[in-house]
Each structure stands twice: as structure tokens, then as C-alpha cells.
């Protein structure tokens, strides 16, 4: 990291004299650090990946490329069973995480780097690999058929579902229409675009308050909308946020509608008790109200709990023989990277044992 000394250059002075909108200069006026988040491993490792063959019946088909799926892949390949892995977003939620400080072996690592390291470990194997595809259905036949969103069918003697969770949507009018036009889910990505603007944060848990912290440093105003009567984030985060004077809180309320044609212009919130509706003018809304399991494609195939998490036993077995599940998509408590990794290894070992006994 290189600390830059602020210097007024002639170009900047000229622009100031011409009296252009001030926001253009914000980046120049304050001192800034140019950081380089280099992912060195992704350039240096050999990639041995194979493409998935539809005619082949794989021993194990892994659905998901977060810590659970990638750990399962390493265990399966080391066991020597033929394995295919289908990944929608490599790293899953870890890739959206700014800092990881509780995955043993690293006192501090950023999420993307950790994912790179996971991927590097998978890359040493000739695994059948498909990235950027999601699964639309899964059959419970003896030979499981995994259907991808491009119509491709992948066959497996066993399947490990490690499809994780995605940010829950508000499911209110305007949300889908205005994604990327003021509706945002990734604070570390999009907060810098709200310099001098007004931003709403829906959600008062850890991820909501983390988003509010990122925003409070640069936005003119941040409004946190929380459905409960207090914030549920960790104390340390709430204290940090309370130091900002440009943050307002709206408690016991939820977002009813996101307004705007071309881009977000405001939101309508409703007090849950009084049913009173208020309009808040805003340039954007960050939605951090929790996560939903990516289990739609197996609804009716395997048993789930009331949160649509897949029920598993201590061997990661689901209600269907030959279908295993691991990580955040399951009913296993405490969603953590290290737990997902451990569950992924368990699911892989269970699947390998199942194949051995069956053959």
C-alpha cells in the first residue's frame, strides 16, 4: 500500500476555477491510498479442469462452489471417485465478505483471497467443472439426474447439495425493477457509489449495520430501517455506527415499496404497529435482511424444515438415499465458513462410503 501525499496540481486548479460540481473532486481532495488486492494464486496454479460429459454417470455430483462444495470436491478427488462440480458463484457468500477473522490458519484474510485459496486447492485435480450455471431440478432415481439452467443433464450415483444461501429479497414493488439502479445487496461493492447521497439500509443485523458503516463514511445521510424495536447486530458494530452523526434509525417498521422510474428516488416504510406510512427520499437502498436457502430446485424431493433448509442427519444424509447435503443450505445450526467446510468433508466421505457399499 502506498500512501499518497495530496498535491494540488494545475489541472485540478483549472477545474476548480471552472466551478464544476464538487463531487468530481472528492476523490482528489482527500488523501487516498491506492491498494492492490492481488489474487496471486489464481494466476499461478495449473488448471486441470475437465468439461462435464452428459453421457457419463459420475460417482459424485456436487452442486455448489462455496466452502462446503469446494471442500467436498477436494475430499472426493483425493478418494479417487469420479466427480463433477456445478458452481453458480464461486465462493458463494465468502466472496462477498470483506474480512474473515475466524477461519483457522488465517488471523485475517479477505473473502476473495480465501476463495482463491480454496479454488487453488481444487484446481490441482482433474475434476469435471462447470461454472456460472445453476441447477433447476434433481431427480431421486437410482441414477440421479441434475438438470442445469441451459438444459444440460448431469448424472450421478450420488449428489451432494451444497448450494448455500442468497440474500433475502424484500419482495416489495420496485425491488426487481430497480436492481443496480439504486437497489443493492453488496455493500463493499456499491457503497462507494453513494458519496454525498442518501441511502437506506433495510435490516439492523450484522450485515445491515456493516453496510450502514460503509455508507455513513461517505453518504450525506443513512437511514437504517429495522422491523424490531432495536438493532440485533453485535454491540461492537452498533457502537461504531453511533459515532456517526449522519445516521438515522426507523424502528418497528418495514419497507413497503421502493419508488423511482429510472432509478431509486425514495422508499415507503410502514410502522408495523400503527400502520402509519412514511415516504423517505433516498438515492438507494441496501437490503440486508438475512438469507434464504437455495433449495427451490429440490422442493418436494428431499425433506426440509420450515425455513426451507434441507434436513440432514449427522452423516449429512437427506431423506433420499444417495442425496447428501452440506453447509448453509442445510438445517445444521450456525452458518459459518469453518462449519460449512467441515460439513462438506463429511458429506463427501459419506457419499464415498455409500458408493463403496453399493458397488
Amino acid at each position: 500500500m502506498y500512501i499518497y501525499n495530496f498535491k494540488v496540481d494545475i489541472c485540478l486548479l483549472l477545474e476548480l476555477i471552472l466551478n464544476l460540481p464538487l463531487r468530481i473532486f472528492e476523490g482528489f481532495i482527500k488523501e487516498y491510498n491506492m491498494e492492490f488486492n492481488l489474487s496471486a494464486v489464481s494466476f499461478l496454479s495449473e488448471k486441470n479442469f475437465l468439461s462435464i460429459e452428459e453421457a457419463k454417470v459420475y460417482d459424485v455430483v456436487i452442486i455448489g462452489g462455496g466452502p462446503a462444495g469446494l471442500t467436498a470436491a477436494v475430499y472426493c478427488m483425493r478418494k479417487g471417485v469420479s466427480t463433477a462440480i456445478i458452481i453458480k458463484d464461486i465462493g458463494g457468500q465468502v466472496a462477498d465478505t470483506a474480512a474473515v477473522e475466524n477461519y483457522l490458519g488465517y488471523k485475517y484474510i479477505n473473502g476473495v483471497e480465501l476463495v482463491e485459496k480454496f479454488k487453488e486447492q481444487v484446481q490441482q485435480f482433474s475434476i469435471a467443472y462447470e461454472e456460472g450455471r445453476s441447477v433447476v431440478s434433481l431427480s431421486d432415481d437410482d441414477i440421479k439426474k441434475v438438470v442445469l439452467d441451459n438444459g444440460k443433464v448431469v448424472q450421478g450415483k450420488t449428489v451432494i447439495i451444497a448450494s448455500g444461501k442468497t440474500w433475502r429479497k424484500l419482495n416489495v414493488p420496485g425491488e426487481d425493477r430497480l436492481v443496480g439502479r439504486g437497489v443493492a445487496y453488496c455493500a463493499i461493492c456499491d457503497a462507494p457509489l453513494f458519496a454525498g447521497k442518501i441511502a437506506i439500509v433495510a435490516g439492523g443485523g450484522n450485515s445491515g449495520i456493516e453496510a450502514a458503516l460503509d455508507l455513513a463514511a461517505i453518504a450525506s445521510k443513512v437511514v437504517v430501517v429495522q422491523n424490531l424495536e432495536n438493532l440485533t447486530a453485535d454491540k461492537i458494530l452498533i457502537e461504531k455506527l453511533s459515532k456517526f452523526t449522519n445516521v438515522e434509525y426507523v424502528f418497528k417498521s418495514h419497507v413497503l415499496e421502493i419508488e423511482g422510474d429510472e432509478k431509486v428516488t425514495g422508499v415507503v416504510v410502514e410502522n408495523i404497529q400503527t400502520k402509519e406510512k412514511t415516504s423517505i427520499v433516498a438515492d438507494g437502498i441496501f437490503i440486508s435482511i438475512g438469507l434464504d436457502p437455495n433449495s427451490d430446485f429440490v422442493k418436494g424431493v428431499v425433506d426440509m424444515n420450515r425455513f426451507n433448509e434441507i434436513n440432514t442427519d449427522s452423516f449429512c444424509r437427506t431423506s433420499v438415499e444417495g442425496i447428501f447435503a452440506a453447509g448453509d443450505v442445510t438445517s445444521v445450526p450456525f452458518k459459518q465458513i469453518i462449519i460449512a467446510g467441515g460439513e462438506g468433508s463429511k458429506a463427501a466421505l459419506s457419499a464415498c462410503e455409500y458408493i463403496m457399499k453399493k458397488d
Partner: protein
Amino acid sequence: MALFEAKIQEQLKNILGNMKNEVKIVYFTQEIECTLCHDTRSFVQEIASLNDKLSVKVYDLVLDKEKAQLYGVDKIPAIVLLDKDGKDYGIKFYGLPGGYEINSFLGTLLEVSGHKEALPGDILKRIKAVDKDVHIQVFVSLGCPHCPDAVSVAHRLALENPRIKADMVDSNNFVPMAQKYNVTGVPKIIFNDRYELVGAHPLNTFLDVIEKL
């Protein structure tokens, strides 16, 4: 003073060691440089000093107007990558590719040098079949971990088909432009000013949009 720490310099050297052929970095600035232009120049010069296969040519957007027109550069700072024969693939970086974007810069640099992964046959066929002019602009912010993926995909498309041109644009440096395209979420990908995608999408999704143009 060096822009890169010793450790990063070492890693960069290793990565650049994978370059197959020479690459020429063409850098556009102006006589009286803005702060970021000055930094971006240091960036390309320092990178180039790490490997013999790299060279830098600096042009002035105003004084070298015909060069700017030749490469289709309309704002600064701008980086254009040319291959060993000086061929321009329509690959540009507007702004300093710092933060996570260093990864897309290096990835594209390696690809232009000829070090690239083979694409699946069906995807390559679809890219080669594109027979209209396509201009892809990928708006990024430097703290966005997904953005380099979107930039790499866009640049790979440009590399494989001369009708496709692809730019990385740093939203925080080109603010009026980002406002024009309503960029409030990144990566935001604009196709010929007609269609847009938000998020890091894979090659096939880019192609789905391009085929609609």
C-alpha cells in the same frame, strides 16, 4: 517512490513470468496531468519495468489526436493493450486498475500476450459468429471483488472477435459518465448503450445479450 510494495512486486514478477509474447501498453494522458493520470502513468511504467516483454508508449489525448482516434480513446487516463505485432483488439482500461481490478488487468495482459485458457468449443463458436459492432463498457469500483470477473469476460470477448470492443471504466473516476448510465451498483455492463447487465455474469450471459443486439 514505488507504487507497489516489495512483496507485491515479487508476486507481479512471477505472474508476468507467464507472458508468452511481448505486449505494448499504450497509455493516454495529457500535457498537464491530473493526479490520477500521473498515478496511472506510474502504474503502467512500474508494471512494465517488471518484465522485459512489456513496453510503454505514452501519448497525449490532445496533441496525439490521430493516435487517440486510431485506438478510439475519448477520455483519460486510458490504457490500451496491443499484442506483439502491435495489433489492437479494442481492449481498454479507463482509470487506474487498482484495488481488485489489478487482477483483471493482469489477466487481460496475459491473454493479450498469448497465454490464455482454451474456451469450450460451443462458446468460442458463438463468439466468432458475432457479426455486428459491439461496444461493451464495464463500470467498476476498485473495492468490488466481483468486478474483475466481468471485466475479464468482456475483454476476452474483444480478444476473440474484432467486432467486439470492451472497456473497463472506473465509476469513481468518471463520475458524470457513471451518472449518465445510472451506475449505482457494480459491475454494471452496458452493451452498445442499449442493453445492460448488473453483476458478474459468465460468458454465456454476455453472449445472450450480444445476440439480442
